[in-house]
């Protein structure tokens, strides 16, 4: 306990320096901005800004990028409540009750509960990371190649299980992503693989480019194809402060949402999106008045908004301790670390304590900033919503194009982004989820490397992964198998489809 306290003091020492406060503020501001604006998410934004972070200090870069991710969770609720459009995918369920509250003239309390719930969840999640990360990193330091390989298998399987839609298609997307990740020079033999004589491909495809194409371009096009009528309750945002009864009704939901979100965030494939869905269905299930849900129940706003913020923050745990990304945003964070020349993994905590603890402390600081940014300044964000999309998307494209082009000052990167944009568009039309593919893409080379090492150490014995002398590796593989079997069971499969259909619709 003393150790944690000591570490947090180091962390706040870093996070509270003026320059890092500025980075946190910029991150939170940008996060809120893209959270409010539908049609651009944290993945595309962080991908866009990655090249720029090269000029910042490692701590500053991470603080800013993290702020974008959890800031977007705050901003997303504003759009969901006032316009009935999720500003972020993780705010989809907030629309259900938040918008109804706004229609009943209670937009203010809905916004306030969402922001305060998120703040509470953010504080709790910060503490959870501080407590849980060091022991996990300790364990991870003992991992050999076979443990890492099995962990990645588990992570990828878990990511597919938690994805929407068909399980087989999600696994296929992962494998496809792994294959795309192998394009470039093979580190062991120096052979150029799948480069087709294109010199630009010899370093592989930057996953920032893939992420921006699959998420950024595809998102913009989806928005352009959709014709929507927006009804904005701008004039009705009065009386921000919730009533006593609102508090009474929502505090338990906030607690439950925070707890559930913190757990689901740590899971591979988890994060903000899954947490908000999970929290909403939990509330509905245990509520004494389930009929009120969808008609303006404040619990239906409080729980998912707390959960998505908690989940967004705890999803940093596997990234920081194991060096394994659990979702696309974390994959980009790893990219940010690598740009700075830091190899992600359990050693980061010991070798760069100021980076690790500074980031954690900044999350708390950032959450405080976000409450200030969101509640008193709500009017400003609402005004933003009246900006038509036809001004927004060319601007977003300009930033994306600059971001990609500046990676290596090469037009070829922009072409690759275009190709993956079309691919992402087609995948969306065929109901193939892009998120598992991005995870596979970043893990492809890592998996091959660890598989090779493990097989070399075991002299080619494929049973090394499930031998009793490697209990951790065995455990991960057994857990993956159980997950697959469980999800394939007809009864559970039906339930899983129901959950996503009911809440996604």
């Amino acid at each position, binding site marked *: 306990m003393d150790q944690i306290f000591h570490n947090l003091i180091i962390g706040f020492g870093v996070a509270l320096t003026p320059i890092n406060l500025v980075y946190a503020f910029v991150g939170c501001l940008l996060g809120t901005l893209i959270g409010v604006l539908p049609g651009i998410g944290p993945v595309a934004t962080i991908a866009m800004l990655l090249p*720029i972070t090269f000029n910042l200090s490692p701590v500053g870069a991470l603080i800013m990028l993290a702020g974008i991710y959890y800031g977007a969770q705050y901003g997303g609720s504003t759009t969901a409540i006032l316009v009935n459009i999720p500003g972020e995918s993780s705010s989809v369920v907030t629309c259900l009750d938040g918008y109804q509250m706004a229609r009943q003239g209670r937009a203010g309390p809905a916004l306030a509960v969402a922001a305060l719930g998120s703040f509470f969840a953010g504080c709790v999640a910060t503490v959870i990371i501080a407590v849980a990360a060091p022991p996990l990193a300790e364990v991870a330091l003992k991992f050999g190649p076979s443990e890492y390989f099995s962990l990645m298998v588990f992570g990828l399987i878990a990511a597919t299980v938690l994805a929407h839609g*068909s399980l*087989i*298609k999600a*696994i*296929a997307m992962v*494998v*496809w992503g792994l*294959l795309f990740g*192998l394009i470039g020079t*093979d580190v*062991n*033999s120096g*052979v150029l*693989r*799948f480069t087709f004589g294109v010199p630009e491909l010899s370093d592989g495809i930057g996953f920032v480019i893939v992420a921006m194409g699959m998420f950024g*371009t595809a998102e*913009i*096009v989806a928005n*352009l*194809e959709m*014709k929507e009528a927006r009804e904005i309750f701008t004039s009705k945002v009065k009386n921000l402060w919730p009533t006593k009864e609102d508090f009474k009704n929502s505090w338990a939901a906030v607690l439950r949402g925070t707890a559930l979100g913190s757990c689901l965030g740590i899971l591979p494939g988890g994060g903000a999106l899954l947490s908000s869905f999970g929290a909403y269905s939990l509330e509905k299930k245990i509520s004494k008045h389930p009929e009120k849900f969808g008609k303006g129940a404040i619990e239906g706003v409080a729980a998912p908004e707390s959960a998505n913020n908690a989940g967004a923050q705890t999803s940093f745990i596997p990234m920081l301790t194991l060096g394994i990304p659990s979702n696309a945003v974390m994959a980009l964070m790893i990219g940010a670390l690598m740009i700075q020349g830091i190899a992600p993994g359990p050693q980061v905590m010991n070798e760069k304590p100021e980076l690790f603890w500074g980031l954690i402390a900044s999350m708390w600081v950032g959450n405080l900033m976000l409450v200030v940014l969101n509640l008193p300044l709500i009017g400003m964000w609402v005004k933003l919503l009246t900006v038509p*999309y*036809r*001004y927004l*998307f*060319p*601007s977003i*494209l*300009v930033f*994306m*194009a*600059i971001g*990609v*082009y*500046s990676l290596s*000052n090469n*037009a*070829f*990167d*922009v*072409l690759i*982004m*275009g190709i993956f*944009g*079309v691919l992402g*568009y*087609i*995948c969306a*039309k*065929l*109901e*193939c989820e892009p998120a598992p593919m991005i995870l596979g893409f970043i893990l492809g080379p890592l*998996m091959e490397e660890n*598989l*090779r090492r493990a*097989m*070399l150490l075991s*002299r*080619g014995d494929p049973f090394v992964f499930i031998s009793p002398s490697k209990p951790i590796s065995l455990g991960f593989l057994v857990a993956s198998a159980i997950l697959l079997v469980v999800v394939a069971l007809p009864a559970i499969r039906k339930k899983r489809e129901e959950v996503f259909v009911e809440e996604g619709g």
Partner: protein
Amino acid sequence: MKIKSQKDFWSGLMFLGSGLFFALWAMAFYQMGTAVRMGPAYFPTMLGFLLTLLGAIVLLQSLTTQPEGDQVVHTPFNIIDLVIAVAIYAILIVLSQKTGLASEWAILGGTIIVALLTVWFRPDAKPIVLVTAATIAYGYLMKPLGLVIATAALVFISAAGGHEFKWKEVIILFIILIVFSVLVFVKGLTLPFPIWPEYFG
């Protein structure tokens, strides 16, 4: 045989095709090695066949089981359009290699042709094609013509892919974006972009 789910049919085909491609390409051109010392072909071949298998399962499922929900693929273009677009690029790239012209021009030319064909024959596909074309044009115009013209191409082409296109609005938007780009990215972050075409100094 009747296709029960178009979405699964085409995704199955897509996975099957690319899985086979990766596996066969790896086997043909790279060394397999052994399990102890894996060559560059080992892992991609494994993954390629796994993807082929998964694709085959999805494909079979699309013919046998009827999932709930809309299973029609709603794309504003069909598979033949896609093949034509790829063929246009392929022909131009081969031509550019034969004539010794830089392949950049082939890609730029192909993009312009595909964009024009879309506007004429597939107006519903304007969002995806023009947004993509706009970014590609930006990338390939940057080096020869500089930031201002590249940004203009991006803004005007992509705006043409939206619902409404008003010249006055788009021009104002372009001016704001170019001023911002120059101030923040070129002056502020000192990215090494040429602002104007080279021979203008």
